[in-house]
Structure formats: structure tokens, C-alpha cells
């Protein structure tokens, strides 16, 4: 359920009935959605996806960057059907590892770009967190629905692999993603709700897939997500509309915070990154 948002703060009462205003656009998003039912057959579909994502092996190869406070690995997962899934893993060491068991962030990047760089992801070590990031090439933004459908199983495989990694605090496995990666982060939280403790997403898309028998409609599946969820949305984002984010937030099974950024489009949002930091780092 949507428990915290800044939507109300952005609405000027005197502009609510004025067509074309931000206030008129945002006002309908305040209303909670009464229907919290999950479509029939969801359980069977998630069982099927989970079976496909089971890993038969997890191999890691260290990449030496000379950083005494983090270890870097290329990871190769082999699924039950023999297919491969690739990922990057960074584990905190030295002064960045205050606990023996570390939290783990499962990270998913957006369409039209590759996995984030090693330097970028070293930020998680500063939080004492490990990060496991999906590294499956550059998904198409022209056909993001197909990209999403093809990446759900690899994303779930990452969550599976987490259970075989040493030194991970399994009560603190989080998902985080931007754009397409946001949808994957939500999908993992919906399909493996007991294993994900928090989920943070920025401009997630697509959220309302209805085409194709294997498509996952995350708005319909939202009640399955029981963890705390943080959602950032740019009001000028034309490919990940705020309306879908709000609809999803109202239907979530756990508490959700939705922060809307009036001047931002489909892009990284500096202020939201600070929110993500607080969300992941707080006890």
C-alpha cells in the first residue's frame, strides 16, 4: 500500500479543476485502489518461472582492481537447462566489511545501456553491502516488453545464486533497479517475496504488460510484494509513466514510499539516489 508520498504536496488545490495542470494530473493518483486480488494462475506461473531459474552451478572469476576494501568477480550461472546467465559481483572487504555476514543488493540496469561499471557499483561496498548485478548485454528499449520477458528468469537466477554465496546475510537481500531494471527488481520481489527484504526502483517499466501468455503484469502482481518498497518517478518520464507507478504503489502488499520528481524525465535522479542510500543503509 502507498504509505508515504509527496504527491499531495505537489497539488495546488486551486489548479485541480484546470485541464492540463500538474495538479489535475496528480489528483486521481491519490485514490487508493480497492481491488487487491492477484489474477488466477499466478501461483502456477511463478512456480514455473522459479523452476526455470534454478541454478546448477555458480562460478566466479576474480577481477583484480587492487582495491583492498572490495573483491570483484565475473559470475557465470548455469541454469538447469544448461543456459548461462552472467553477472558482476562485488563483495566488501577490509574496513568496508563491518560484519561477517553482509547484506546483498541484487541490481538490474535499464534498457539501452550495459551493466553499470565496477567503479559505479563500488558504492555498495561503502554501505557494507555486496552487490550482484545482472550482466546480460544491452536490452532493447524499442521492444522493452520482450526484453523484460526474456530477462525475468535470469533475474530470478541471480536471487537463486544468492543462496549459494558465502557470507551473505539472507535476511537482508534487497533488489534495486532503474527503468527496465526497476521492473525486474519488482518482479523478483513479487515472485520470491519471502527472500527479498527491500526493493528500490527508479522509473520502473514496463509495469502493465498484458500481451503474450508469459507476460507478467506487475501491477496485477503487486499484492504479492510484501517487502518495503521505495519508488522514484520522474513526472516528465514518457516511457515509465508516473500513473503506472502510483497504481502499482497502491496495490503493493507491503509499505511503499513514492516520490515524484516534477522536473525529471527517464534519467538518473540525484536526489532519489540519496533516498536509495538511506533506504538501503538504514537498520
Amino acid at each position: 500500500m502507498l504509505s508515504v508520498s509527496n504527491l499531495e504536496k505537489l497539488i495546488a488545490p486551486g489548479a485541480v479543476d484546470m485541464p492540463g495542470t500538474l495538479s489535475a494530473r496528480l489528483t486521481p493518483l491519490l485514490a487508493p485502489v480497492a481491488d487487491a486480488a492477484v489474477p488466477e494462475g499466478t501461483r502456477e506461473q511463478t512456480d514455473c518461472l522459479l523452476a526455470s531459474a534454478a541454478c546448477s552451478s555458480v562460478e566466479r572469476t576474480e577481477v583484480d582492481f587492487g582495491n583492498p576494501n572490495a573483491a570483484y568477480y565475473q559470475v557465470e550461472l548455469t541454469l538447469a537447462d544448461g543456459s548461462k546467465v552472467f553477472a558482476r559481483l562485488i563483495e566488501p572487504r577490509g574496513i568496508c566489511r563491518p560484519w561477517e555476514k553482509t547484506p546483498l543488493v541484487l541490481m538490474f540496469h535499464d534498457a539501452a545501456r550495459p551493466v553499470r561499471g565496477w567503479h559505479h557499483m563500488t558504492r555498495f561496498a561503502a554501505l557494507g553491502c555486496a552487490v550482484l548485478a545482472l550482466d546480460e548485454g544491452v536490452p532493447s528499449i524499442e521492444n522493452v516488453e520482450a526484453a523484460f520477458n526474456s530477462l525475468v528468469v535470469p533475474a530470478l537466477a541471480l536471487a537463486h545464486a544468492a543462496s549459494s554465496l558465502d557470507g551473505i546475510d539472507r535476511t537482508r537481500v534487497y533488489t534495486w533497479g532503474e527503468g527496465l531494471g526497476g521492473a525486474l527488481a519488482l518482479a523478483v520481489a513479487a515472485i520470491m517475496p519471502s527472500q527479498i527484504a527491500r526493493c528500490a526502483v527508479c522509473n520502473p517499466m514496463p509495469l502493465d504488460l498484458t500481451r503474450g501468455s508469459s507476460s507478467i503484469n506487475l501491477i496485477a502482481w503487486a499484492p504479492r510484494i510484501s517487502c518495503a518498497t521505495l519508488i522514484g518517478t520522474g513526472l516528465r518520464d514518457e516511457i515509465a509513466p508516473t500513473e503506472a507507478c502510483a497504481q502499482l504503489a497502491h496495490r503493493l502488499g507491503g509499505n511503499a514510499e513514492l516520490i515524484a520528481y516534477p522536473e525529471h524525465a527517464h534519467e538518473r535522479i540525484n536526489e532519489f539516489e540519496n533516498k536509495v542510500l538511506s533506504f538501503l543503509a538504514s537498520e
Partner: protein
Amino acid sequence: MFDDTTLERFRSYRGIDACPEDFDAFWDARVREADAVPVSYRVERAAMPSGSACDLFDLWFTGMRGAELHAKYLRPRTDDPVPLVLQFHGYPGASRSWFEQCSFVGMGMALIALDCPGQGGPSQDPGGFVGTTVAGHIVAGLDGPVENLYYVRLHQDIRILCNIVSELSGIDRECVYVNGASQGGGLGLATCALNPELIARAAILYPFLSDFHMVWDLGLDVVAYEGIGYYSRWFSAAGEHLDDAFAKLAYFDSKNFAHLVHCPVLFGTGLEDTVVPVPTQFAVYNNLTCEKEHHLYPGFGHEEIQEFDDRIIPFLCERG
């Protein structure tokens, strides 16, 4: 994309205008002025929950003309002295998010990220610039004495920040580094030049603020360099005052600081960059006389270059 002949020409190009003869003396005097400002700063815990392996602080200090300046200050949670990165942001804007700055903490390093005055962060700009101020900090103060240009004052503010770093506890002062892209790259190089006793290494990506005459000549006095374009249109429409303007801008031209840089420099250029024209970047690099390495990225413009960022990890970590 440039052909091989053009790239070869870039490899020996050092800029259109020569460095002013009194450049070093000018900056010796400016550094002395900055050093005469009493060091005054305070460190406050930031209004952010600290991550489990790091602490976040706001660093406030008094700059030139009494300006109240701000920087993000992050530290790994340890009592041992740690290396420090001085980070400078692009134009116009502010230091990136706390989360983004955390990458250096994940390398076991503290980080100070200055917010340039009057741009997108909380640092105050006391102003008082003679001449146009409507568009572009490059030309702020251009109708007054060189000493009062915005960027001259900013380099002095950074000198004051370096003096604070020399006092901060818990810093390994043998391992103080600079990192910056675009405006941050220009400020970073000048920081190396004006604080050679402090800065041990620098990672510089497509440095801004250089070879202004070439920027104008290429017709690329737009976006970050738009101040030159506006100045030219309004005050030197037929080119009457351009030489005088470029003569003043030369005092904070990144290429002119290059000969004063003594630390090793990791340097990156996206070959499709039109915001900071590629030949102006070569002018900076070619004037560096220190240990240096230049990485060229075909297909990249003025944007995040992950491969360059990844090079920063061993470049800084191999030293400590």
C-alpha cells in the same frame, strides 16, 4: 569521428594562444592571498542516515570574500588515517548524490566533494562581478580586473579548502588525490597545479575551461561555453574586444596550469565530445609535463565513460 590525420595533428597541438608570461607570478600572488584567509570550517553530521561502513558529513568553510562554502565529506568508518579524494563536479551543477560519492569510500578513501559557489549546490557566491552576469560563470567579472574573475576566486577557494585538508584529522596526507570530469577536470588540474605539495594523483576526464579561443573559433561557444558566445554577441560583435577577453581568460585556462602539474595524471577523452571540444582537451594534455596517460574513447561524447571510471580504481588504489 576524426580521421587519422586530424588525430595526429591533435597530438602536437598546444592551444591557440600562448600562456601569459606572468602566469606563474600571478598565481603565486593569488595563492598568498588565499593563504592569508584565516582557516575557518566546521564539520557537521549530514542529515542522512549513515551507511554501515561510512560516515557522511557536511563540511562548511569560509572562502574568499567571506563566502560560506559547502562540500560533502564522506569517510570510511575507521580510526586509521585514510587516503582522501578531492572531487569536483561538472558545470553548472552540484556535487553528485551522496550515494555516487560512496564509490570512493568503497575504495577505503575519504572524499570531499565541493559545491561550486552560485551553481547547483548550497555554496554561496558573494558576487560583485564587474560586467555581464546573466549567462555563464566563465565571463563573470570579465570587465573588471583579472583577479576578480569568478574562476580565479574559485581556485583561491579551493586553495583554502586544501589548507583545511592539511588540518583535518584522520587523513593520510601522502595520499590526497583529485578526481573530476568536465568543469571538475579543469578545477582538478588547477588544484594539482596550485597545491603541488598536497596532491599525489589526479584522474581527469574531458577537462572544461581550456583553450577558449579555439572553442570560439570552432563555433562551439554554446552549452557550457555559452558565456563566451553571449559576451561576443553583446560586447564584441565585430571582434573588437575578443583579444582582450581571451587575454583575461588565459589566467584560468586549464592548459596554462598544465606545466605546474607534477603528480601523475590519468586523462580521458571521448572523441565525439562537442561540449568540451576534443582539440582543446589535447591542448591540455599536450601541455602536461608530468607522468601521464591519455585514454581515447571513440563513440563517446561528453558522457559517463565507465571504462575510464573503472581505471580510476587501480590508478588510485595502487598507491594506497
